[in-house]
């Protein structure tokens, strides 16, 4: 049966890679985001690569009134309906320290906006009894670090939300996967120094798609981040608070 992905935050680098990859194997894509012109270009690309459905729709994590139209469109999509959430923003910790009002937007973009959308669409997926929700979190959500703990806190909140959603939706045949990418070579990280294990977006996209097919609960991508974060999570707070990692 054909699968169609609603891709939230479709202008992000990883989302674009994911949409192309899914299209290449014959999945449909409904691209949701703010920059309609840019998404239209991605939609054309997806159609050329084989997506049977490639459309765009407005979505703004900070404006919940944009959610309803997506729900309406989603309910008309045939086959398996899946959702991949790539929404997010990452102001630097310095920017946040200089302007703490940035915190609420960061939390909305990375956590409460997508959570509100997913909660709204959850009954539709439960009623269908299949599909996957892939939520893109971050290794930054595993531990509060000096460099970006507001972003990390938002992602940690999203992780916990996804964990609960998995608990709920799994009972109805809908699979929820938490994706924790490490550093990825995207527009967001371009120009940042010293990024460890920097991965290409195509690699992350492939891991997400494979994880979704195999119904993984939580994946680290690339896989190196699993041992790395396992160790980092094990460091006692008493020690961790003195580290700069």
């Amino acid at each position, binding site marked *: 049966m054909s699968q169609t992905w609603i891709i939230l935050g479709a*202008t992000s*680098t990883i989302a*674009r890679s994911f949409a192309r990859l899914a299209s290449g194997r014959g999945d449909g894509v409904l691209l949701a985001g703010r*920059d309609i*012109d*840019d998404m239209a*270009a*991605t939609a*054309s*690309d997806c159609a*050329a*690569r084989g997506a049977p459905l490639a459309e765009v729709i407005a979505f703004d994590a900070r404006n919940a009134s944009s959610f309803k139209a997506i729900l309406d469109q989603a309910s008309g999509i045939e086959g398996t309906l899946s959702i991949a959430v790539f929404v997010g923003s990452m102001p630097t910790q310095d920017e946040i320290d200089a302007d703490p009002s940035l915190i609420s937007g960061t939390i909305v973009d990375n956590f409460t906006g997508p959570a509100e959308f997913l909660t709204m669409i959850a009954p539709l997926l439960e009623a269908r009894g299949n599909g996957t929700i892939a939520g893109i979190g971050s290794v930054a959500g595993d531990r509060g670090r000096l460099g970006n703990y507001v972003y990390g806190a938002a992602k940690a909140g999203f992780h916990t939300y996804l964990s609960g959603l998995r608990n709920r939706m799994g009972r109805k045949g809908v699979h929820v996967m938490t994706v924790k990418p490490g550093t990825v070579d995207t*527009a967001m990280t*371009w*120009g940042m120094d010293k990024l460890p294990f920097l991965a290409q977006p195509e690699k992350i996209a492939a891991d997400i798609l494979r994880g979704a097919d195999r119904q993984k609960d939580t994946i680290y991508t690339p896989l190196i981040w699993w041992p790395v974060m396992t160790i980092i999570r094990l460091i006692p707070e008493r020690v961790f608070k003195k580290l700069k990692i």
Partner: protein
Amino acid sequence: MTWKTSEYSGWGRVHTANSAAARPERATALAAIVEKTPAPAVGMRRSYGDACLNDGGRMIDMSRMDRVLNFDPETGILHVEAGAQIGQILKIFAPKGWLPPVMPGTGFATVGGAIAMDVHGKNHHGAGSFGVHITEITLMTPKGPKVLTPRKNAGLFKATVGGLGQTGPILSARLQLLRAKGDVMIVTERRVEAWDEFLALLDASDATYTVGWIDATARGDQLGRGILEEAETGAGLVTAAKRGKRIPVDAPSFALSPSVVRTFNAAYWRRVPDRGRTVVKPIDDFFFPLDKIHDWNRLYGKSGFHQFQCVVPIDAADSLRAMLERIAGSGLASPLAVLKRMGPGRAGYMSFPMEGYTLAVDFPNKVAATRLISELEAATVEAKGRIYLAKDALSGPDSVRGMYPEFAAWAKVVKSADPGGHYITDLVRRLNLRTA
């Protein structure tokens, strides 16, 4: 826009440059950069020399703007962003029965780069250069996108095609894809014993795709021996895809020493049976044989390599033979050497192709090789031929202008398109192409 400062090099890894690069992913981001801080656009940096470098300056990395914007299955016209790679276009459209009209030796080359170099492929004798098949180019100017067609904006179009990026970044282009029978190649390989036979076979070939591998170490009676490949597209035959390999480290200097190369070349030549053979190859294996080995340029070690490529008119074939004699005598050539007949097709003022024969040979970056290459350049000038600027890393300003008879027309258009000289690259600076 964020700028990332790094050291970059061309494919030959001889020239390097420190530049601050921006890497836009959307047209609006590119527009903002070009409005505020115009800089040369680069693609996948498959030019061998310094055409893709701007030392101490900025550049715009177009590799992430690589989407298919539209495809008309009736006409085969493809509208694509400039950062799209030729190999990706091939991968998407070959199964649908369409091919990029012209494919250079690497599928990693971008559409923008292929336009800026007006590249040619194994079908040049029939199809002409890449630019011949471009029906529209959208340049990003400081005032926004500007659409060029060969008819309405002939001057700017001809200055952009083969124009080394000097008219500004290309946002997107429309190209006419070619109908193909399928996505495999039926290749006839034939051993060629010597130079005269090679030219005669190239002249007589009526195949769509024709290319000659030449043993640039063979001398005497064997001078100019090689393998002629003639190919057509075909369908219905499935061949397995192979996974790419990567060269993980810089090879030591003896990896391509003269005796190794001579031995390899002799074996490579004998690989094809005396009576020739016909083989079926996956389409990308035929067009991009080296792409499977990622970073193959590292085989030449840390100091890098040069590719000398020239074209000479038909009646100057003897001069080309003399050049090959000099190359074979030097013992400096690598296994990578190509001989091909070119047709007249070209689309820009500064396009490389001319009707004649083109010879391309790789050399490790050594003093003796650079000396040999400058002798070969002088011989090219004498033969009224041309050096290919996508490959060049060594020429000086004096010879190049004379090789390109429409240089003055190009320079005039470029001057009005980019009066501030924002798009000057290291190659343009080295060859002094933007000064009166």
